[in-house]
């Protein structure tokens, strides 16, 4: 494992970039616990100071230090993405594996539901929900709702893999040894779909964080807890660009681009390693 990591660091530029972004994210999240300022309070430092050594990312019109604000924002947004990804992975695993293994009527019913969820636009429903429950909405509920919509596409991927596993010899062996459905699915088939689970996790996380930003810009989330979206929301509220506080928008934008691109590169470079087809392809066609 360690040697694979070192090899990839040496040979894959996207992987290096991804690791750097992941490191940045980790450091920021750790730093958030040592912040000298509480996250929810404003007017703690001089307002509208441009980036300097004292305030690395500058300060905003609400008198908050943007650097420490970003540490909280990244922590909250990241956590939100992780929770969504985990819940929706569980749903897509159960549905995908079961549906692919069982086939028949259950499969058709599940896939009809699945296709509906693939098509259904989640944003208007989320807007409606947040609009109505704003005070009672916390981001755990929001993550749960997002996962209800985020599992469908990946369940299809898992199902197609499970369908091919069903006809392999080891499945027959397992059936004849008296394994029940649950045991076959989770003991025998689960390890084979792990790469799919892994590769979809990061994309799902990024999607969830993106949704949160969209809702926050609309002012539909709890705008007191800093997240990436909330930072942009306040910048918009104070018309940061027009009043010349450009770093207020630029900082979250740069950080988002760096972290999103980095995590995405990380996922595709690991995918390339996991999926033998892409390796073969490269050898074959050169």
């Amino acid at each position: 494992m360690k040697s694979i990591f070192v090899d990839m660091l040496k040979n894959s530029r996207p992987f290096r970039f991804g690791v750097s972004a992941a490191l940045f994210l980790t450091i920021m999240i750790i730093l958030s616990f040592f912040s000298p300022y509480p996250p929810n309070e404003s007017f703690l430092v001089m307002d509208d100071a441009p980036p300097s050594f004292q305030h690395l990312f500058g300060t905003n019109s609400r008198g908050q230090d943007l650097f420490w604000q970003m540490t909280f924002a990244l922590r909250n947004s990241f956590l939100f993405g992780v929770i969504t990804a985990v819940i929706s992975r569980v749903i897509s695993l159960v549905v995908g594996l079961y549906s692919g293994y069982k086939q028949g009527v259950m499969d058709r019913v599940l896939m009809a539901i699945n296709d509906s969820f693939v098509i259904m636009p989640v944003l208007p429903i989320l807007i409606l929900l947040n609009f109505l429950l704003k005070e009672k909405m916390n981001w755990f509920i929001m993550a749960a709702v997002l996962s209800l919509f985020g599992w469908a596409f990946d369940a299809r991927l898992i199902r197609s893999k499970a369908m091919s596993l069903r006809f392999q010899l080891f499945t027959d062996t397992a059936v004849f040894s008296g394994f029940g459905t649950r045991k076959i699915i989770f003991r025998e088939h689960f390890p084979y779909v792990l790469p799919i689970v892994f590769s979809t996790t990061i994309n799902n996380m990024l999607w969830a964080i993106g949704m949160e930003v969209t809702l926050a810009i609309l002012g539909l989330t709890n705008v007191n807890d800093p997240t990436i979206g909330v930072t942009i929301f306040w910048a918009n509220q104070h018309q940061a660009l027009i009043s010349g506080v450009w770093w207020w928008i630029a900082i979250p934008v740069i950080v988002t681009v760096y972290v999103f691109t980095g995590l995405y590169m990380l996922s595709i470079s690991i995918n390339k390693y996991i999926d033998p087809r892409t390796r073969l392809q490269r050898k074959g066609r050169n």
Partner: protein
Amino acid sequence: MKKKNIFKSPFFKYLVQRLGQFLLVVFVGITVTFIVPRLSPTNPVEQKINQMMVSGANIHPEALESFRSAMTEMYGLEGTVWDQYRAFWGRFLRGDLGPSLSSYPVPVIDLIKKALPWTIGLMLTTTLISWFIGNLLGGLAGYFPEKRWVKWAELGATCIRPIPYYITAFILLIIFCFIIPVFPTSGAYARGVIEGFNLKFIGSVLYHTFLPALSLILVGLGGWLLGMRSLVSNIVADDFVLYAEAGGIDQNTIMKKYVIRNALLPQITGLGMSLGAVFSGALITEIVFGIPGLGQLTYRAVISFDYSLIMGVSIFSIMGVSVSVLIVDLLYPLFDPRIRLG
């Protein structure tokens, strides 16, 4: 010779399946919008009215009464849940989404109709452009993976793909409106230009919507390019392509008729899905650049607590997605003879 029974043909089966899927999506979507307000622990209608009062929004008392009765009928808690559900469907089928609260007594449906051309115009052109360019480049990239420009295009696409569309919008806004101010910051056309079908108006619209359109095209492009490239590079390794190459068919024919046609199928489905995302596709872009489409309508509705408008936009966008997916599904047999012929 026995006549072929049309009801047993694979095409008919496909049609029935797709229509069934469409009805299921509409059913689930409408049911969800019916259930969501009822999850709220307090009466959503009264809650919203209270919120508006507290926020000091200026609302005509007559508007309030009419709103209350319309909302109670539509989303309210009168009668059994079953009765409410039936009434909800009745309203929906008549296309009556109630009056807008913030601009009473204009019906919600009229507001949506007015905003829709902007959103559709922006989304349709940008989606089609990015789909076309992305697939073209992606196809070439998959077929000639060793070319130098391909590597650069791939790198660019990989960098831009994971970036959310509104972040791209902000970047373009900062660069082209503040650092190098060559484009207007907001609005769909210049002040003082009268709406109408004349060159001045169209020119103004094009100038004002260039940046938002560019931001949407850039974001879409990366996804289509990468998707098409991986599809093509898989198909190129297939046996039938190898066979065609061995048979001496010229490269252009192989690329056009063997590879691209096969690779395009999933991309066409994808096109249908992203055309369906008219509503959510450019929500923030419209707000950032001040284009009076559905996104901005939603934003206004959220700010002014216009419950009926939000409800209307939600229902409308669910319908929009399912209809456009259905249309693409029905057109699909034109591209894929396997469904036509079975």
